[in-house]
């Protein structure tokens, strides 16, 4: 195996140092060292994040915004400071455009509810064939509630968004929003966001990118992308659970009615009528995920210290390496061959069900995901019911990919 490791090209990350910052990576599973290839579902957490949460609770915590005392003021500063961190991370024009949500799913539901409230029956929303349920079900619910039309942009057999077909869907000028993934969690396809945005804008539509997968792997610049809405989720970005982000242009946020009602999102309240706080507070009802938001800031600071360019390079190399290694596994077929792929590879194997693959890998300490990956319509499009999926993080190393490939060969032998 070490011979294999030598073959890989050099990259800038100090993997050994990075891995040491993830205590969970030294755990054993079924008496084997953990090989965690399920980061696309949720990433593991570095000490920087774990310690940030613990330190916050140990030394500087109170409810925020309405408190006049020291602990509350300091906690408010830490919480609000993360808006600046996130704004810089996305290159958003303004911190006021950053809305904290529970996860990407809530961010998209917020848009479906509040931007959706501005749509009129007959207007349309376009999504793609390769959306995660999080960017599909909310629009279905809006369709059924508000009488808008839901249009589905097809993908090519390679797993890329079919831009010609998208252009056709936009032609009648009825589309109010194009909501598509920035990177598929099944195929790894990175979508040509700028082109999509330009097409959408030409047709008078806004554009939302589900960045849940993308932000983890590459530098995101919402202005360069021409995005109107952008969402991501903290737990895939080495941050805690319970925290996600919606970015939207201020003019849109200003125009949208609130999603949930409660404390902190109001300006004044009487029984007759309430008025709303300014954005982003209008969209953050109740006590937010204070500790998790602060720790999301720590996660972003941590990854930016490594540098998104280095992360992208590392994962690109790993992905190429993995595609090569998997090509040698008899009977294995990688699903999709997109133009531009992030660190996610789905595959199937002749005669071996993805569930059996996942379970047998697990017996050998290797964690991958198997199933429909919350993308049932995509599975149907691919003529599959499930795939196995390996996905890579900043801590993934080539020897783990070797372990995956070698174990897959043995699994096939076991069944065939």
């Amino acid at each position, binding site marked *: *195996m070490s011979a294999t490791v030598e073959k890989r090209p050099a990259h800038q990350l100090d993997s050994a140092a990075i891995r040491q910052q993830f205590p969970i990576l030294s755990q054993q599973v*079924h008496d*084997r060292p953990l090989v965690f290839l399920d980061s696309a579902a949720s990433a593991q957490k570095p000490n920087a994040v774990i310690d940030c949460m613990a330190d916050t609770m140990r030394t500087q915590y109170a409810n925020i915004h309405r408190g006049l005392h020291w602990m509350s003021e300091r906690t408010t500063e830490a919480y609000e400071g993360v808006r600046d961190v996130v704004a810089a991370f996305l290159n958003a024009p303004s911190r006021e455009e950053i809305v904290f949500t529970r996860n990407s799913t809530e961010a998209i539901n917020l848009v479906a509810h509040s931007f959706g409230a501005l749509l009129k029956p007959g207007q349309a929303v376009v999504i793609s064939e390769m959306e995660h349920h999080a960017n599909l079900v909310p629009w279905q619910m809006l369709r059924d509630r508000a009488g808008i039309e839901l249009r589905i942009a097809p993908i090519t057999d390679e797993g890329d968004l079919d831009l010609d077909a998208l252009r056709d869907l936009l032609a009648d000028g009825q589309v109010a929003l194009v909501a598509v993934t920035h990177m598929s969690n099944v195929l790894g396809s990175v979508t040509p966001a700028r082109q999509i945005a330009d097409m959408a804008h030409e047709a008078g539509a806004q554009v939302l990118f589900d960045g849940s997968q993308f932000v983890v792997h590459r530098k995101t610049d919402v202005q360069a992308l021409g995005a109107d809405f952008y969402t991501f989720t903290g737990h895939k970005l080495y941050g805690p659970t319970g925290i996600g982000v919606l970015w939207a242009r201020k003019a849109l946020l200003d125009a949208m009615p609130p999603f949930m009602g409660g404390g902190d999102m109001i300006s004044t309240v009487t029984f007759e009528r309430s008025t709303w706080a300014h954005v982003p507070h209008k969209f953050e009802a109740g006590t937010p995920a204070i500790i998790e938001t602060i720790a999301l800031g720590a996660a972003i600071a941590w990854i930016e210290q490594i540098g998104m360019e280095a992360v992208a390079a590392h994962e690109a190399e790993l992905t190429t390496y993995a595609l090569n290694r998997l090509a040698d596994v008899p009977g294995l077929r990688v699903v999709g061959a997109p133009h531009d792929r992030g660190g996610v590879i789905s595959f199937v194997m002749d*005669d*071996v*069900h*993805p*569930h*059996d693959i996942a*379970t*047998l890998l*697990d*017996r*050998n300490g290797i964690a991958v995901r*198997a*199933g*429909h990956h919350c993308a049932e319509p995509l*599975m149907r499009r691919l003529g599959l*019911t*499930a795939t196995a999926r390996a996905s890579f993080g900043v801590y993934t190393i080539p020897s783990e990919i070797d*372990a995956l490939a*070698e*174990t897959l060969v*043995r*699994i096939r*032998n*076991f*069944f065939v």
Partner: protein
Amino acid sequence: MNKGVDGSALYDRLIVERARSPLFSGRLEQPDITGEGKNPLCGDKTRVELTLDQDHISLVRHHTRGCAICQAAADLMAERITGLKPAEAQTLSRQFSAMLVAADVTSASDGGTEQPFALGPLEAFAPLQAHRARIRCAELPWVALKEALSHVDV
């Protein structure tokens, strides 16, 4: 890394063989009762067809699309319940589930006094106790059986 794949503890040879070459797969010309099981989470599906001879299950066939666990579970279920009375098959079903969650057999039954059956080859699935998420794969054929038996008075 060791050389063999460490699946033997979980995937008994019997399971692998029955998944590869099931003995009871197919369809009956004239089933008396049928049932279906579906796991929307993974798309697995099984259809169970039975004939009843007086009050005994006389013939069983299954049509299963799923993982090795599910395939083998369907096939071994078909084998094991052939010849049982419907009520006995249901008792067995409860005992099978109880084994999978490593629960006391009687605690999973209704009255706590039902007669235990030998699980026999079905015990091959016992290692699933350590793989909770796969238990529903093994149970799917039994869900289908339950539906089928709901059409007869037990």
